[in-house]
């Protein structure tokens, strides 16, 4: 507790592997959630998270703390790995909004189906929207950090998040109207 990432990186570079373990423990959950949000399944997210930490370990000396926080650096590697994987696996078919389950239902099965359909809808967003949406709405990162990770302007990030939210929320609204 209290040791910042830069110090942990310095120690890991000096050969103290336990300090790299501290880095993994600190960041694994947020990177896994981000990868899961982008990829839509736990197995791929687990593989990518492992690859990211191994790539980070091997390339630790190239990390430049004057350019980005360590967390931003890790999120950027994760994003790039996920996009590469998605390019190999897509296209993903967008769920028909009219087929979305009734959003007002309290039935656990219907709720679960709705949740799965939203997962599909999230995965079907353009990858830039999906990535920005997950970082903002699930990881709850500041927009400025997302802009760094996405390597784009603050305005573009805001626009991507807005469009992603609109798209997902419109799926719900369609479902609710259909059910009335």
């Amino acid at each position: 507790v209290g040791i910042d990432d830069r110090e942990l990186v310095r120690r890991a570079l000096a050969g103290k592997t336990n300090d790299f373990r501290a880095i993994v423990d600190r960041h694994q959950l947020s990177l896994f959630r981000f990868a899961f949000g982008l990829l839509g399944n736990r197995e791929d997210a687990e593989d990518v998270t492992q690859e990211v930490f191994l790539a980070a370990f091997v390339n630790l000396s190239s990390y430049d703390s004057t350019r980005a926080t360590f967390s931003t650096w890790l999120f950027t590697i994760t994003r790039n790995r996920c996009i590469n994987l998605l390019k190999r696996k897509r296209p993903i078919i967008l769920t028909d909004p009219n087929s979305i389950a009734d959003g007002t239902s309290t039935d656990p099965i219907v709720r679960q189906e709705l949740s799965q359909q939203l997962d599909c809808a999230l995965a079907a967003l353009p990858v830039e929207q999906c990535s920005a949406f997950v970082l903002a709405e699930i990881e709850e990162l500041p927009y400025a950090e997302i802009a760094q990770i996405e390597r784009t302007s603050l305005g573009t990030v805001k626009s991507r998040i807005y469009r992603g939210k609109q798209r997902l929320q419109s799926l719900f609204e369609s479902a609710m109207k259909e059910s009335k």
Partner: protein
Amino acid sequence: MTDNPYEQWLAERRQVSAPAKLADYIMSQVANIERQRRDI
């Protein structure tokens, strides 16, 4: 807990947990890389 299903879905996504042994797998691979480096 909100009744809005969209908000519920977001909340569930924020509570996703990492696999229990993920850090152990990563560190065992890190140890392999270190061994390989030493052997070179």
